[in-house]
């Protein structure tokens, strides 16, 4: 596909191809990470032949660990307080050294798990990220608590950027309120992303790279680092 005339969007069929390619590469490149799984949509009535276009990509029970952002200084004081959590993966730490009182309070909630669902928007023709967070005993987290798990730079992104903001909406397949990262402007910055990378611009838009590129931007909100192996992958 010619980068110059491309509008930055993908069809639902292209989305399906792109996420599957991404999930495969992810599995190959980081076998230690939880895998991304394609979930066919439960919306359609069972028993009838489905042409399987509808579905979404999931990554579940991910802990936002310290290792996702190496710049974070580890808090010595919190170590003693959180012996139990140390056994499991430690909660994501904030950049600013908060005072002990708040750290203790936060850690007493335990580990925070995140589920990420990549859904295709038929209206905007781009992927949209739905997510939710919960504690070890399944207690859902509210936005205030979630924002504490995000890197400090996200607060800036969320406030200043016109396109990156979080709302609560019904998950299009699961029918329950989930958090959603808004897709406004996705097609514009995806187009820019592909145009700015000369090797991509020369070879044309490879659909297989769409999701990796998209996630490398969107993942920043959560401090998710895409392993460089995936980004360097070229067909």
């Amino acid at each position, binding site marked *: *596909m*010619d980068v110059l*005339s*491309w*509008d930055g969007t993908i*069809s*639902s*069929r292209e989305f399906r*191809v792109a996420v599957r390619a991404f999930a495969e590469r992810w599995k190959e490149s980081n076998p230690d990470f939880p895998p991304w799984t394609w979930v066919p949509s439960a*919306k*359609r*009535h069972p*028993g*009838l*032949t*489905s*042409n399987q276009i509808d579905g979404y990509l999931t990554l579940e029970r991910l802990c936002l660990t310290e290792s996702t952002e190496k710049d974070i200084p580890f808090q010595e004081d919190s170590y003693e307080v959180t012996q139990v959590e140390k056994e499991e993966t430690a909660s994501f730490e904030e950049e600013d050294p908060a005072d002990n009182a708040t750290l203790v309070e936060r850690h007493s909630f335990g580990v925070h798990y995140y589920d990420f669902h990549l859904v295709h928007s*038929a*209206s*905007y023709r781009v992927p949209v990220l739905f997510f939710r967070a919960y504690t070890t005993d399944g207690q859902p987290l509210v936005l205030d608590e979630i924002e504490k798990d995000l890197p400090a730079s996200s607060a800036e992104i969320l406030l200043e950027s016109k396109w990156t903001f979080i709302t*609560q*909406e*019904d998950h*299009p397949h699961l*029918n*329950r*309120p989930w958090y959603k990262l808004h897709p*406004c402007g996705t097609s514009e910055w995806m187009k820019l992303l592909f145009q700015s990378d000369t090797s991509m611009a020369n070879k*044309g*838009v490879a*659909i297989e790279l769409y999701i990796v590129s998209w996630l490398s931007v969107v993942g920043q909100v959560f401090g998710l680092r895409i392993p460089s192996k995936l980004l360097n992958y070229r067909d």
Partner: protein
Amino acid sequence: MNKEARNFVWEGAIPLQIHLHESQVTTVPPPPPALILAPRLGYLPLLASQIKPHFSSTLPPVVDTIWFEYKGLPLKWYIPTGVLFDLLCAEPERPWNLTVHFRGYPGNVLTPCEGEDSIKWSLINSLKEAAYIINGNSKNVMNMSQADQVELWRSVVSGNLEVYARVSSKLKLGIVSDEYTANSNLSSARSGQFVDETDISGQDKAGRVPVRLYVWSVSEDIDDSEDAPPIDTWDKISYINQPVEIQEGKYFTLHDAVKSLLPEYFQGSFLIDEESTRVQGEDEQRDSSEEASSNKIAEDGVEILCEHTKSCQKSDNAEIKLVRIQGIEPKLEIPFSWVANNLMNPDYFLHICVCLKIPRLNTTCR
């Protein structure tokens, strides 16, 4: 746009009989239900200003977010009232008996609603989405002045079509042109009302139409809607938020439109390939090879299905039992562009309720 049709749509209302949930009744005898005429194009929580005073003498001192329920099903506040009625009352119930709550907001089932602001935001957001679908960008909606936004919102709340038409025409959201309303457009254009963007020269032009489809199904054994089991969970409803693609020149009916959104139910009769309607420049080779392989899979599926069909007397296709829009059941042969232009909601979306008759799985054939 047809003036008569628009007036009909904007004047539509549902008589409601609203009962306060017993857990919040503090007086004996319990208060009588509130009788309210709710605009079809409106949203239930907007009725709070009428409902609360009615129950004020009996409500406990501390109340929370208002929410409604029908036969145990919490109602999604962002779905227009008329759509909820068409969807949940297979046999229209007049008045429609709803239960209102002022406590215990079911946050695990309903997204939060912080009063009028949430609903206004939801409407503007849908408008943005509709604009993107129709024009390929949401600029016109995003650039709306604060004053216009307020005026648009107030016109929806009060059901004022004249104000709404004036403000919304600035958004330049012409849906597909259709020759069927061309004549009425000429006369209304002369009278200075309802300036719109339909092309008077008239064939169906290619484009995307914002549609929200709500589908539920009944087994083919059930003939009478009254025998159908009630919808007690939102899981029984497939909510499909997907634009309908209209191709240039072809005669495209409401039936075609509904089937295009539910291809898996109508195998063999209609397979929409959205790739064929893409206008942007593409890598033909990559696309056609991908298409070829997936078309082959589709074809194989259809072949296999047809073989089964031969041995299983009836077609395995689902049947459309009913299609309801704005409370009416339009003839399915009506041109879809007419339906889109005249029956859409203020959010520029066409909300369509569809009931499908699903064939029972015939185990002897498998």
